[in-house]
């Protein structure tokens, strides 16, 4: 383990994330982890890491980081106008930095969250089996909080030294600009009134300002799903639940672990990377999909990641 970056500016909300702590849900603790698992995995694979290694999740406005030693890094996910010493830096590509190099982010072009992987893996506090940051509990990652100016990031020693230049071809990346989320009808979809069902799988929604890593409140058509109150049950990321007010909520990585609102749809696992790249104000719509189609999309994404050597 050795120091690798000094945080000159933290950005809007930059956290250490890995693939979360799924077993903690039995205690009511959100699973957490990288919102966009595809970009997180890709960035790690491009620098020779295990795909589950911790990376930095940079939200909307990225940080300014100064390398304190030479290192191999890769950036995947949102295009937040990454630069090295002021010049354009490649996305979805492993590249080397020298001591003193400055990594900066500019304007948001596409997406909301960029992932910075460092060869060896970012090091954070481990909590309940994961280094993912949980801000509510102030545990995991960088002392349970987003990065601050003056923080120093460390990385583990890589098991082997990967070469710079690994790359994920453009056609293999998620199409983040296409905000159609494939979704499978949920357990309580039959409760929806017919016009509400049509609106769920057809109307445009937009992310309300109070959308975050816990979930997205969706503005647009009010949906109605009358019926008896449900007993609470376990929830997962990707679920679209419908509180009595009729404004759907799409649950994301830091979601509540149980709830009793009707679940009218679940976003296909292969569409969750696109969902992760939405920001407040963005429009989205749900496209009803079969399990078979969702699994084919999932397999294609898997193959894309497997193409990174």
């Amino acid at each position: 383990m050795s120091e690798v970056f000094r945080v000159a500016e933290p950005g809007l909300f930059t956290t250490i994330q890995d693939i979360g702590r799924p077993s903690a849900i039995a205690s009511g603790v959100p699973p957490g982890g990288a919102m966009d698992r595809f970009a997180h995995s890709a960035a790690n694979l491009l620098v020779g890491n295990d795909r589950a290694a911790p990376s930095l999740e940079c939200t909307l406005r990225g940080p300014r980081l100064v390398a304190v030693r030479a290192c191999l890094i890769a950036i995947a996910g949102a295009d937040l106008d990454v630069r090295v010493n002021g010049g354009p830096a490649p996305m979805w590509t492993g590249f080397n930095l020298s001591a003193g190099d400055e990594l900066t982010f500019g304007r948001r072009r596409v997406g909301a969250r960029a992932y910075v992987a460092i060869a060896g893996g970012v090091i954070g506090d481990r909590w309940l089996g994961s280094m993912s940051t949980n801000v509510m509990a102030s545990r995991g990652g960088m002392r349970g909080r987003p990065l601050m100016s003056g923080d120093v990031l460390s990385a583990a020693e890589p098991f082997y030294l990967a070469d710079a230049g690994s790359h994920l071809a453009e056609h293999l990346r998620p199409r983040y600009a296409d905000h159609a989320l494939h979704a499978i009808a949920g357990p309580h979809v039959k409760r929806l009134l017919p016009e509400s069902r049509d609106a769920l799988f057809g109307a445009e929604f937009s992310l309300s300002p109070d959308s975050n890593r816990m979930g997205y409140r969706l503005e647009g058509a009010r949906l109605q799903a009358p019926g008896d109150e449900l007993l609470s049950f376990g929830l997962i990321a990707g679920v679209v639940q419908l509180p009595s007010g009729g404004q759907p909520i799409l649950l994301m990585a830091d979601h509540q672990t149980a709830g009793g609102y009707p679940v009218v749809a679940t976003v296909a696992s292969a569409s969750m990377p696109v969902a992760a790249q939405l920001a407040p104000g963005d429009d989205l719509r749900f496209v009803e999909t079969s399990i078979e189609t969702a699994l084919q999309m999932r397999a294609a994404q898997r193959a894309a990641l497997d193409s990174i050597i």
Partner: protein
Amino acid sequence: MPPRRSTVRVRVYPLGDTAVLAELGTRLDTALNTRAIALASALRKRRDVRQAVAGHASVTVQFDPDQITHEALAAAIRRLATKRPPMEEPGRLHRIPVVYDGPDLEAVAAELRLEPQQVIEIHGRPIYRAFLVGFVPGWAYLGPLPDELVLPRRPVPRTQVPAGSVAIAGHQTGIYPLNSPGGWHLIGRTSVKLFLPDSDPPSLFRAGDRVKFFAVRE
């Protein structure tokens, strides 16, 4: 009389392409909850299951679709659910001291046509079961609450409920582990910590535990 196999009808719904919701029933019922907890624990032992969490009368199962199809998993769940659950070990018993001075105590008593002292006495009578730990870290749905205390939730939830508040709603009671919004009726408070971030597991209560409240002055 031979032991009855089972009368549980399990409905298995897809939750996307990598999870299912298996519903054992729709009633708040200790026997159903015992079955759900046993089913979740049996499912967690399977290699094709990534995570299985019991709800009140259901199990949410995340699985690896490369190892098993939805249909095969649903069949396995139905098979496991018809097995008689192993005799449940009695859950750990927690005795929780409560100062019954909640902001809703008077209103709750009035609505139930009881004296506040009777509400306190009835709330402290049963040994409750922790049906489900979840929603927020350390929260447990406790029940069943005696019929005399059953009220719908507050029509307008509070935006801020202090940690440690002891509350009732419907056939359930619970303790807010953290400052959070909440729509239940607040009848008291406790100093016992429910969310223990530096313990593993980080929750005082586990599903199946038993909880008894007793009144204290301060």
